[in-house]
């Protein structure tokens, strides 16, 4: 997951010695990857800012208890995963459909904005329909590029179970997005 574990370890050590700037540097380094994970895990871009803030707040509060094991990013993703699960639970309690929320925003060029927006909406809606365990493994594998072994450590779930969930998620998406496939016949 991490791109510069050694630098992270150095920054974490400085932060734990009381260097606030080191924590600010860690935030600057990881805010966008965590935002990407939360965007896809929650399926709503309007919730990402607050969720991201919560992840780093929890990290700041838990910082003194963190013990360096060479993977700050895994620790941070575990916090992000918990924040995502809490947010999903809150959404479910509030009986708000993920599809009715603001879908993750596209980074479209002006020429293709409409088509891109439509595609994004379809994909976001399909992602939101996935059961939470399948969505999380899909997000971690596809968007974060984690191996099943890493995801297994992160979620405390056997890798074989994760592989099955991932395959099921892909099959569902393939079925759900079949109308976007030019080679398949459109079925209403």
């Amino acid at each position: 997951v991490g791109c510069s574990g050694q630098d992270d370890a150095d920054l974490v050590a400085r932060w734990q010695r009381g260097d606030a700037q080191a924590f600010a540097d860690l935030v600057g380094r990881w805010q966008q990857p965590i935002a990407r994970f939360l965007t896809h895990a929650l399926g709503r871009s309007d919730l990402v800012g607050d969720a991201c803030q919560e992840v780093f707040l929890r990290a700041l509060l838990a910082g003194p208890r963190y013990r360096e094991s060479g993977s700050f990013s895994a620790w941070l993703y575990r916090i992000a995963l918990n924040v995502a699960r809490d947010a999903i639970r809150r959404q479910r309690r509030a009986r708000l459909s993920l599809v009715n929320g603001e879908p993750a925003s596209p980074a479209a060029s002006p020429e293709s904005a409409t088509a891109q927006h439509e595609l994004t909406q379809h994909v976001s809606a399909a992602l939101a329909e996935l059961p939470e365990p399948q969505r999380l493994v899909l997000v971690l594998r596809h968007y974060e590029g984690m191996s099943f072994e890493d995801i297994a450590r992160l979620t405390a779930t056997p890798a074989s179970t994760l592989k099955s969930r991932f395959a099921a998620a892909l099959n569902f998406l393939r079925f759900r997005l079949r109308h976007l496939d030019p080679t398949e016949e459109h079925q209403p």
Partner: protein
Amino acid sequence: MNCTEVREKLSALSYDDLDPATKHAVRDHLAKCSTCRTELAAFQRVGDALDSVGVPSVRIDVLGLFQQAAARRAMQVRRWRRAAIATCGLAASLAIVVLLRVELRVEAQQLTIRWGKNAVEERTNPTVVERVVARDDSAALAALDDRLRLLDDLVHALITDVEDRDERQTHRVARLRDRVEELLARNSQRLGETERNLAAVVTALSFLPKKGDKP
């Protein structure tokens, strides 16, 4: 491998999650089977569709984080203090109940609260009670008084400890706040320096000869 076996592995193949031998077998089949190649392409299109979802740009307010963290820690300290005081109060109440032998009895049409030695016990063994009372009534009261004083000291010690901890936490929060303010001031200073540098660069650029100017 037949088509059914291969199709079960296509999603894994599209993410390069197969072991080399299986991957080789699947690729051999795909080279010969156009239907399975179409299936694989469909999985790859799902991957492309997933990549179409953009990510909003996020900027974390680090200063706000430090302030929120300080507020949460202060809240936790208050909760701990309340819990400690409640626990001390409960412990003191229980100790009083035990020491004074408080007895609560609900009988027909009446509620009886009594403390001290059991009257029934006294009646069944009057000689012992009389002997004890006669021998050392004042000593028993003094012992009870000592115990209550000890309990009082214990409760006060606990309260002092809780207050000390609270004070230490308050100092810690104050130090954190000072550090945040210092960071803010340093950032502000850096911003000022950057603005001055930028202004100097802009001024220097305005003095450079423009295209077409005669030297």
